[in-house]
């Protein structure tokens, strides 16, 4: 346990010893603040236009249903942030295993009391911690803005829970790709490709029957993710992202076995 904690501390120090982590944290928080502010401004403008055009005030029935905080602010913010995370998370995960492998320090790690499973666990845990921290920092401004408007934070919390789980899913894919290569570039490109492919598999539905189409839909990230944007937290969707993490963990662990027996 002590060795595991020591490895996690080393991973954290290594992560925050590079400017990449700060750059990623700053970029996600800045993008969140700018997009949220911009959509909030646009939402207010549309509401004022409708309210003044109809002289009916904000309670007027003439304001279309889709002009609301969810559709006009939360959903576009979540959609843009989701794609931003696809771009940024692989940049964080690409070095986690690949760098050790390129330098040969993974061999050194294996000489400690830690088994491959614990090494993978430490690296996964630290990366998830970083993703959670990123989303917590990004949550600050939207949360305060909504709170100042006298609204509850539940819906926004669901949105950020979805974003955090999405980030964890992406980190899992990125770590898996990093575990199978010694090139950071290959790890990042492979993670982008895999995440982009998994984002929405509905393009393949026209080639397959209804059952396979339903399976592809169940495997896609986007439908799971947009349910959180709608303010609905479904256990099945939470399990989906946890499952993605579990399978990636097992596969990353397998990469150590593969390395041991291959030349």
């Amino acid at each position, binding site marked *: 346990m002590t060795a595991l904690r020591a490895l996690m501390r080393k991973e954290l120090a290594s992560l925050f010893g590079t400017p990449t982590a700060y750059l990623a944290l700053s970029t996600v928080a800045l993008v969140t603040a700018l997009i949220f*502010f911009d959509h909030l401004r646009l939402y207010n403008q549309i509401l004022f236009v409708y309210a003044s055009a109809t002289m009916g005030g904000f309670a007027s029935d003439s304001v279309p249903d889709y002009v609301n905080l969810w559709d006009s602010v939360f959903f576009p913010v979540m959609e843009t942030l989701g794609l931003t995370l696809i771009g940024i998370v692989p940049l964080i995960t690409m070095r986690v295993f690949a760098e050790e492998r390129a330098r040969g320090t993974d061999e050194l790690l294996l000489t400690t009391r830690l088994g491959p499973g614990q090494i993978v666990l430490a690296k996964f845990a630290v990366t998830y911690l970083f993703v959670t921290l990123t989303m917590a920092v990004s949550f600050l401004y939207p949360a305060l803005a909504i709170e100042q408007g006298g609204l509850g934070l539940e819906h926004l919390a669901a949105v950020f829970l979805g974003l955090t789980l999405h980030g964890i899913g992406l980190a899992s894919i990125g770590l898996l790709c990093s575990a199978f290569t010694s090139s950071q570039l290959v790890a990042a490109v492979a993670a982008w490709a895999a995440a982009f492919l998994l984002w929405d598999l509905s393009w393949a539905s026209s080639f397959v029957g209804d059952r396979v189409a339903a399976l592809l839909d169940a495997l896609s990230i986007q439908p799971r993710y947009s349910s959180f944007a709608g303010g*609905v937290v479904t256990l099945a969707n939470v399990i989906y992202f946890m499952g993605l993490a579990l399978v990636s963990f097992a596969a990353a662990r397998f990469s150590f076995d593969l390395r041991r027996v291959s030349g």
Partner: protein
Amino acid sequence: MRALALVGVIALAFGLGSFYATRELTAFAFSNLAAGALALAAAAGLALRRLRFAAGSHSRRVLLRGLLGVVAALALATLLERAATWSGLRGDLTFEQSFELAPATLKALAELPGELTATLYHDRFDPRTRNTRLLLASLAEAGPVKVRERLLTDSPEELDRFEIASSNTVVLELGSRFETVERPLEATLYEALYRLRSRSNGVIGVLRGEGEGDVSSVAELGFSGLAAALATEGYQVRSLVTASLAEIPDDLDAVLLLAPRRALLPGSLAALERYLERGGRLVALLEPGAQSGVEALLDRWGIQAPDGVIIDPASGASSEGAPGVDPIAYHYESHPLSRGLNPDRMTFFAGARPLVLHNVGPGDSVRRVVLASPSSWVTQDLSVLARPRKALAPDGARQDYHVIAAAGRYPRAGGEARIVVIGDSDFASNRYLRALYNLDLALNAVHWAVERESEITLRPKLRTPKQFPLPIQNTLRTFHGVGLMVPELLLVAGGLVWLRRRQA
């Protein structure tokens, strides 16, 4: 191998990018996806050929164990996901609890005689469909509902058949019957569900001719909304003209009296009394200031309606009359009629007449159902209804739970007579019917009167999403202080780390 993988990834990315942008599998997208998949498969094949495994059973065991671990993780994840889907566990964190189905919707779904098909017709980029999809998913989780989607452009003959005029329209089909819902909210879908069931709950006679509320009027103080709601719940509404009323027909399940402004003819009152003596049912909505003769009849049945207005200071200011003149009731006695209503589920009355109950014949029972708050009092000065000045409780005014609605049961030789009296009729008018839980009180009163207690429920509300502004001026300081400054500080920290690494 690397070149193949690179080409594969790029082709795949452009194929997917084209699909995500247009949501169509064009020739460009298809050829890129196919070429990308082939290139990646070839690269993977070459990579496998290059792998050199150490020979020996130990190596095979290690590999097999690792692979088994991956398969076990995959199986466990799939199993857990399926179990979670089956459990249907979820939390609705929306501001309006938009996806928590009302008891009435759940009941309507449970009573469906067969599988219901709900088809969403929409344009490709209609943002409203997100909400509708989640709502339909909620229905599918709660009952035998099959959800489908159709693009408007793909099904012109179905558009004609179902008379679909716009995107985000849902068609509910049950057997050969269908209902088209143009504004799919839970309330409108519920009403369509109810109409599809085509259950007949009976005939309601509505008295007309002495200034009663008009069930065909769509004006704000008309009652067309109530008539439509009764029709939705399976009641046929029939007008009874009081001037020519010699006897109330026995085929009526109940009589609805909507606050007559003038005195009813003695013959009409006698017919109503005979109808009740035969075990008839009456739902009477009264108004302060009106003397129609029904008050004396009701008094004989244990429900006195003294002229006056309830002033309930707990309800606050009114838009027209004195503060407290429009009571918002949240005290309900335990009674089948008020099932489901509680202090969080309020009802709104626009000027309510007080009711006083007294015992009548043996076996009869008259019960209070809806009460104003304990700080309410009654005034005989009806001018408070129109003047927004503060109404002061006169000396000796009794502050108490004044009765706004009451219900009585009267066993008679011909059957059990039932009477529901509510001291206000405006609460069921088009203007206020959908306010708070007014619709539920009005419809549940009818259901109880006709002895269809199983139909008493709480219906979904016509909620619209939060649409009030959140002025950015109010959050500008937060935007600068947190939204911009936190990323700025993080960037400074990152820059310092970078400089330190360069110097090291």
